[in-house]
């Protein structure tokens, strides 16, 4: 789209009035039934949900031996999945806060479900450290509280940092999301035609009146939260990066890891937002508010992240060589010629090579191509996380301990099962809450001179 100075880019001209915006977003929930496809999709997620619950139940009762970890490769799928999910969880808040602060108004169409994605993904991510603990019943020992054993948490431990980072992040994201939702809940209350709808949405809206005074306080709080969210989201994934950077293992001493992990999180998170946006746009007929221009800019963000990721990998290789430590150099050699080399080549293909197609406008405009690239990026980012764990642990300082990881059925269950949980969360969400921020889209439409 050429997008001249006057032409509305972020909203389709045919559906411009404020009333039409509310109707487009609220009516699929309040006036129309879910449709047959929705039920099929819901049914399809149920086996995944059962597998997830079964796997969690099994590891809690049988123990960590179900996983493919061994005495050499002591971390496995749980850690990779944790980093992958928390990475996806970071993009929602990044989109909401960074784009709000830089006045990228187009975020209005995507921020709500991106924030919901954050909540679901961070919630799922939170499961993994606990089931990986080995003795999950003592998970609460991570919290500082006066106890009869007179013990305190080890504050120098990365596990304790993770605990606080995830806890703060989930609660913060929930508040940020609910604050943005508040005016839209009032819209839902006022449009509700059933008593139950009025009572439930009314209670959740807390009596929001759209008063100019409310708006002013709301904007103060929302902007301040956005300003806090940027350092928070960077710190959360930096702390995840520190899990690896603050160690003595070869390949796990990289000071580049915190920013490398933050960009990786943005990368996979944006890719997931693109996939979800395509589904929501199609499923709820929201072509008027999620336009090709949105996909175009998201494609550009992914392209940028791809270039930064490639640079980060190159820095990792260069530093191992330049540092001159034999164990470090050896582990980088192991990336390319070792046991997991094919996965490593797949990683490079998925994260560095395939996304270069986004240089071409065609790839950013064609939703099939864009969806394909996004899925490839998410697969590549999972490879990256599992290989960070496997390569170093399989090829540490002591040659006599070199072993590879043996993937178990349980590992596959906790890899694929939570995807169904995630989809289930979204399927339920799109039926009960507005997935697009109505008041912010109204504002865009006002600013673009559409609804005047």
């Amino acid at each position: 789209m050429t997008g001249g100075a006057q032409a509305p880019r972020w909203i389709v001209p045919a559906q411009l009035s404020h009333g039409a915006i509310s109707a487009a977003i609220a009516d699929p929930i309040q006036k129309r039934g879910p449709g047959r496809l929705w039920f099929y999709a819901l049914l399809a997620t149920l086996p995944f949900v059962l597998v997830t619950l079964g796997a969690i139940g099994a590891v809690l009762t049988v123990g960590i031996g179900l996983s493919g970890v061994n005495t050499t490769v002591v971390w496995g799928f749980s850690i990779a999945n944790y980093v992958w999910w928390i990475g996806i969880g970071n993009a929602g808040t990044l989109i909401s806060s960074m784009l709000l602060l830089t006045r990228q108004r187009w975020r209005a169409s995507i921020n709500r479900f991106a924030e919901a994605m954050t909540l679901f993904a961070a919630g799922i991510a939170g499961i993994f450290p606990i089931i990986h603990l080995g003795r999950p019943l003592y998970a609460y020992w991570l919290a500082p509280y006066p106890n009869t054993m007179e013990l305190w948490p080890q504050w120098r431990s990365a596990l304790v940092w993770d605990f606080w980072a995830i806890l703060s992040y989930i609660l913060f994201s929930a508040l940020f999301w609910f604050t943005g939702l508040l005016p839209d809940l009032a819209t839902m209350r006022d449009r509700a035609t059933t008593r139950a709808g009025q009572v439930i949405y009314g209670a959740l809206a807390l009596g929001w009146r759209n008063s100019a005074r409310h708006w002013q306080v709301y904007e103060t709080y929302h902007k301040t939260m956005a300003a806090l969210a940027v350092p928070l989201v960077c710190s959360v994934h930096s702390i995840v990066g520190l899990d690896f950077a603050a160690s003595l293992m070869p390949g796990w001493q990289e000071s580049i890891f915190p920013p490398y992990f933050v960009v990786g999180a943005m990368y996979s998170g944006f890719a997931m937002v693109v996939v979800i946006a395509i589904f929501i746009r199609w499923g709820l007929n929201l072509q008027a508010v999620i336009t090709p221009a949105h996909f175009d800019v998201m494609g550009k963000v992914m392209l940028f992240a791809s270039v930064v990721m490639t640079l980060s990998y190159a820095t990792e290789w260069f530093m191992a060589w330049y540092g001159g430590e034999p164990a470090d150099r050896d582990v980088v050699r192991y990336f390319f010629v070792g046991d997991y080399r094919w996965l490593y080549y797949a990683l490079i293909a998925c994260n560095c090579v395939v996304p270069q197609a986004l240089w071409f406008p065609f790839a950013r405009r064609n939703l099939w191509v864009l969806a394909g690239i996004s899925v490839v990026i998410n697969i590549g980012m999972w490879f990256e996380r599992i290989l960070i764990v496997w390569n170093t642990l399989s090829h540490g300082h002591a040659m006599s301990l070199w072993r590879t990881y043996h993937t178990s059925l349980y590992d596959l269950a906790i890899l694929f099962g939570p995807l169904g949980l995630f989809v289930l969360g979204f399927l339920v969400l799109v039926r009960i809450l507005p997935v697009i921020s109505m008041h912010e889209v109204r504002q865009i439409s006002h600013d673009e001179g559409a609804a005047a």
Partner: protein
Amino acid sequence: MSRPSTKPLLAEFETPDALVRALRLARADGHRLLDAFTPFPLEELSGALEPARNPVRLVMALAGFGAAAAMYGLQWYSAVYAYPLNSGGRPLHSWPVFTLVPFEFGVLAAAVAGFAAMLWSCGLPRLNHPVHDMPQFERASQDRFLLLVAPKDAPAPLRRRLEEAGALLVSEMHG
């Protein structure tokens, strides 16, 4: 807020521009603007209606820095006094890594306190309010722009003014 002797009028407009025009006319005549209800925040109104209290940022700063300081204190007390543990010869008071948890916790505390301050400033939660009973009020969250003005004496001139400015409906507020 002192109650005016006459009942305030609620005027409904189709566009934000009409609302702002009516607001200026009513003000020029000496009527008192009580509130405006709009489906999204209007920049033009941000100066017109100062909230009675907006301590959100101050509360967030106090809660954030306070919680962070308290968390740092807890780490210092537990690692140095209550449970000193020599971990690889590192100093008991390992201040560089002791900044991580206070940061996370401080941001969380600021968010929670700010949310509470926002609700308190807005007088929420308050599920029912007299304006909810007014005709067309449910449109304020969708596509109409409402202005609540207290007339300076008799309501008739104000009503006329609002209608001139393009009000679709002007109704008297009760309660």
